[in-house]
């Protein structure tokens, strides 16, 4: 279990308990924070986009090819930053305790 600090699209900050082993997308979706995760983790919908706090972003495994392609694809619709990630590709573990993420705008 890791506590993750989440800023939603209205600027509200909350702490969410994230069980280890789950994709962060599912945790955010189930906490009703505005993440949809429509495709279920296939990197084909772009609805779980988050901005990871820069200090934490570099501690995550880098984005894979499919994730990077989706991030490139959504650039046309939303601000994609160097720390943008698809939260479906981030698996929660204890090392993420205290991580801060911001839910990106809807595509």
């Amino acid at each position, binding site marked *: 279990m890791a506590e993750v600090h989440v800023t939603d699209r209205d600027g509200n900050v909350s702490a969410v308990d994230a069980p280890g082993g789950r994709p962060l997308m599912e945790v955010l979706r189930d906490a009703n924070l505005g993440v949809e995760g429509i*495709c279920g983790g296939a*990197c084909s919908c772009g609805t779980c986009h988050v901005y990871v706090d820069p200090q934490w972003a570099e501690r995550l495994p880098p984005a894979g090819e499919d994730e990077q392609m989706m991030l490139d*694809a959504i650039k046309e619709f939303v601000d994609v930053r160097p720390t943008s990630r698809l939260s479906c590709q981030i698996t929660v573990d204890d090392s993420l305790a205290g991580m801060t993420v911001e839910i990106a705008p809807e595509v």
Partner: protein
Amino acid sequence: MGAINTKILLESKDLERCPFPIPVGWFFVDFSENLQTSEIRNIEILGQEWVLFRNEGGKVGMTDPYCPHLGAHMGHGGKVVGDNLRCPFHHWEYNTEGWCKNIPYGKITPPIVKKQAILRALPVVERYGMIWAWYHPECEAPQWELPAIPELEEPGHVKPRRGSWPVNTAIQEIAENGVDFAHLKFLHGSPAIPPAEVSFDGHISSVNMANGYIVGKGYGPGLNVFHFTQEGVTATMVSYSVPITAEKSQMNMSFTHKDFPEGSRELAIAKKLVDHMIGQAEGEESAGFESVDFIVWNHKKYRPNPLLCDGDGPIVQYRKWFKQFYVADPETLAKI
């Protein structure tokens, strides 16, 4: 007395009729004239169902039926729209190569859609007035091209006579009779076992039977072209069997010859040659395949380790050649 070999006595209980996967190659699908512009049809060949369609530009597509989006069967309610096949469920559209060309509501195109075809589509060409599809179980690209067959593609030949027969066996078994020269005497009643030469080179097999009476080539597992020559007159038999399921095939043949003048000696010989290819022909003692081969094909089992004797044809070499067209796990290949 040593112990008897019970393996040969008992082996047939465990043998299969058709242990073969669907082989790699070009296969006949239908005659071009049978598929109209904008037509969609469901067909069952090559071990599964496919959606066959001709787009508005005239190009033929042959795809897996199930939409990669949510699995709707596009051959039930799908439509040809311009160049594409449109799924009835959410109107996703696919071209003849299986690329998704339109998702009419999503803002973002899923990256894989831009990267590759997402619907399995077999490579299709139209040759000889026929639709041909390239089958590879792992979707690899064609490894050879279909050959020129002047008798079917160039003027000066009669409109081919066609035949089509269902057979309850795999196409390897059907074509094996082409190198089983001994059966021509005993099953077909030919006066003697004809002398024959066979060679194999890549995907092509060649046969010369009875010193030039029958000269033929096989182009992979799905196309054979034979020339029968008698008294200087040649008739052509093009054979294009296609697997329907692992145990069911459709044998298809076209027979043609030069457009000899009506009433000529050449025409009479050519017609007799064609009759003889199929069945009984006047003045011939032996029987064509239609009357005798089916009974064997429809009931035999495949012996991967046959007991051959010295007068048999090059069965083993033929099987080794044919094996290159199978892509399967080692366990399956061991049964072939």
